[in-house]
């Protein structure tokens, strides 16, 4: 194994540039090092001006998403040895405005998230004294969709979002489904309008890249297609039995 590896890092300094540039750095190639360790080495020893987000370094906080050799990845869980010859291209996530270097602006997602009412909508009766009962099987029905760490890799991978920034997006819809499918929730009706809108599920053309990119196996593409079925059935029911739907 070689001693070191080249990282070709995208730089963008808005005060002095209109376009990103690429800067090359040589970092040690250690078998335990993730791309994030390489970036930290650059910042600590080579170039303190490099800006990027990171926090937990264990794949649970979702901060460190970047594009590595063209793929959206969590840099804390992407290992340098897997790119052993190098160079490794590190760029910001796609489909988001770049604020600086490897830092992107995710305000769009943060604005969209509350619109799907991503919280448990309780029934009208007051909750029981103890817990709502929920069997392990009932939890399995939504568990997968509750694993989203909001890392935005899915938005970065989605060409629809790239072309149409008004698209609600994979993570937001998957989170809505997490609550729709939770046996304790009664909010499916109030989420319907936002989800079944033109910029909701119907903007999705099932490219499926979001699920490929997802580091937590949430399968947002599956969540969206399932809701297409649900929404279509709801429309059909409303058409055939207008009184019942109301």
């Amino acid at each position, binding site marked *: 194994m070689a001693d070191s590896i080249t990282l070709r890092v995208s730089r*963008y300094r*808005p*005060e002095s540039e*209109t*376009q*990103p540039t690429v800067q090359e750095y040589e970092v040690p190639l250690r078998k335990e090092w993730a791309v994030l360790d390489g970036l930290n080495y650059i910042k600590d020893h080579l170039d303190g001006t490099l800006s990027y987000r990171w926090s937990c370094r264990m794949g649970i906080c979702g901060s460190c998403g970047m594009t590595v050799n*063209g793929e959206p990845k969590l840099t804390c869980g992407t290992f340098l040895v897997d790119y052993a010859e190098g160079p490794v291209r590190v760029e910001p996530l*796609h489909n988001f*405005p*770049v*604020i600086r270097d490897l830092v992107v*602006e995710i*305000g769009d997602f*943060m*604005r969209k998230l*509350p619109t799907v009412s991503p919280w448990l909508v309780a029934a009208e009766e007051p909750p029981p004294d103890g817990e709502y009962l929920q*069997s392990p*099987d*009932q939890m*399995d*029905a939504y568990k997968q969709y509750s694993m989203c760490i909001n890392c935005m890799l899915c938005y970065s991978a989605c*060409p629809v979002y*790239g*072309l149409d920034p008004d698209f609600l997006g994979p993570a937001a819809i998957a989170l809505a489904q997490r609550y729709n499918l939770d046996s304790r929730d009664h909010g499916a009706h109030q989420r319907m309008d936002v989800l079944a809108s033109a910029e909701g599920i119907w903007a999705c*053309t*099932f*490219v*499926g*890249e979001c699920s*490929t990119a997802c580091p937590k196996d949430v*399968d947002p*593409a*599956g969540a969206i*297609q*399932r809701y*297409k*079925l649900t929404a279509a059935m709801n429309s059909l029911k409303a058409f055939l039995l207008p009184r019942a739907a109301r």
Partner: protein
Amino acid sequence: MSEGVRYQEYHPRWYRPRISTFWWLHRRSYLVFVVRELSSVFVAWFVAFLLLLANAVAQGDAEYRRFLDWSASPWVIVLNVVALAFVVFHTITWLNLAPRAMVVRLRGKQVPPVLVAALNYVAWAVLSALVVWLTLG
């Protein structure tokens, strides 16, 4: 939108790269996706062809023979062969993805996706066999 969030929607110094018109050529998965979507054009062609056939039959024997002659011309045959390939591709990709949309829960547990896909394939085979029997039998 609620007052509760302090996010800027736009800042002139943020860099927004333009998406190239040929974005779909940049990744194999995107290319396969676009081909899959374009295959629906050929599905539409088959529907149109079927309607033309039905119309020809309705108009009587002479019209029907004219239609068959036309269908035997080389470019129509080539078109239909190509269309068949795309329609088969369309069907296989559709059936493979069906379990992602159709999640069935029986007695509290999820039916394995492979089984859902398999049942779809079986239904396709059965219906195709039925059509063959009706037309050729």
